[in-house]
C-alpha cells in the first residue's frame, strides 16, 4: 500500500482557493432523459445499458423514473461528456437533453 504524504503546513500562511468559472471540463451539466409515449420500456432499458454500460437493475431504475416522473437525470458530467451522451441517446431516438446542473 502506498504511504500517505503528510501535508506541509507553514505557520502564518493561509491558503485560499478561489472558485473558478465553470469550464467545459467541470461536471456542471446533467444528461436528462424525458418521457414520451412511443419508446418501449424494454427499449429504453436496453439503450441505457448499452450507452452507459449499466447493469439491468440500474437501467430499469432510471427507465421507471422516466416513465413515472416524466424524466430522469442520468448523469452529471462535463460539457463535452454530457454532449457526447446526449448524442449517443439521440442516435437511438430517445428524448434526451443536457441541462446546466443547479
Amino acid at each position: 500500500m502506498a504511504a500517505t504524504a503528510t501535508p506541509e503546513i507553514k505557520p502564518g500562511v493561509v491558503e485560499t482557493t478561489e472558485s473558478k468559472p465553470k469550464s467545459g471540463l467541470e461536471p456542471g451539466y446533467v444528461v436528462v432523459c424525458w418521457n414520451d409515449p412511443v419508446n418501449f420500456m424494454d427499449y429504453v432499458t436496453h439503450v441505457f445499458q448499452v450507452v452507459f454500460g449499466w447493469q439491468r437493475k440500474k437501467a430499469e431504475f432510471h427507465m421507471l423514473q422516466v416513465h413515472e416522473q416524466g424524466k430522469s437525470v442520468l448523469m452529471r458530467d462535463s460539457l463535452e461528456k454530457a454532449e457526447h451522451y446526449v448524442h449517443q441517446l439521440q442516435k437511438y431516438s430517445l428524448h434526451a437533453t443536457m441541462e446546466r446542473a443547479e
Partner: protein
Amino acid sequence: MKLIRTTKTRLLFHLGHWEAHLLLEVLNLYPCLPPAHHKLSKQPGVPEPEANQQLLDEALAEHRAENQKHLHALLADRRRFAPTEKGGRLSLPPAEVEWVLQVLNDIRVGSWVLLGSPEAIPAKLNAKSAPHFRAMEIAGYFEAQLLEALNGGA
C-alpha cells in the same frame, strides 16, 4: 420472426413470408424522423447553443447516412438477408443488431411524430394517418422481437 440460433458472432432469425415482406417495407422508410427533431437542451445555460445544436445536427445527420449505407448493404447481402422457401432468413452480428434497433426506432418515433405525436393511440385513422400508424406498429413489432432475442429469448 423467431430466433433460431445464437453464436458468439451471429444471431440467426427465421421470418415468415409476411414478416419478411413487412420488414423490407418498413426498413425502406428509413430515415423517417424529421432532422430537426432532436434538441440539445430545453433550457438556457448551455454555452453557444446555436453552434452546439448545429454540431449535434451534423453528427446525427452523419450517423443516419452511415446507418443508411449499412442498411442498403444488409438488404443487398444474400448471406445476411435472404428469402427462403418458408419466408426469409436474417443473420446479424450483435453489433449490427444495435444499428438495426436504431433504424427501427427512428422509423417508429418518426412515424409517431408524423401522426402528430399523440399521447395515446388515435381513436380514428384516415388515409393520411393510417400509413404512419402502420409503420409505427410494424417497426415496434420487429424492435420487440430483436430485444427479446438480445435478452435470451431463444
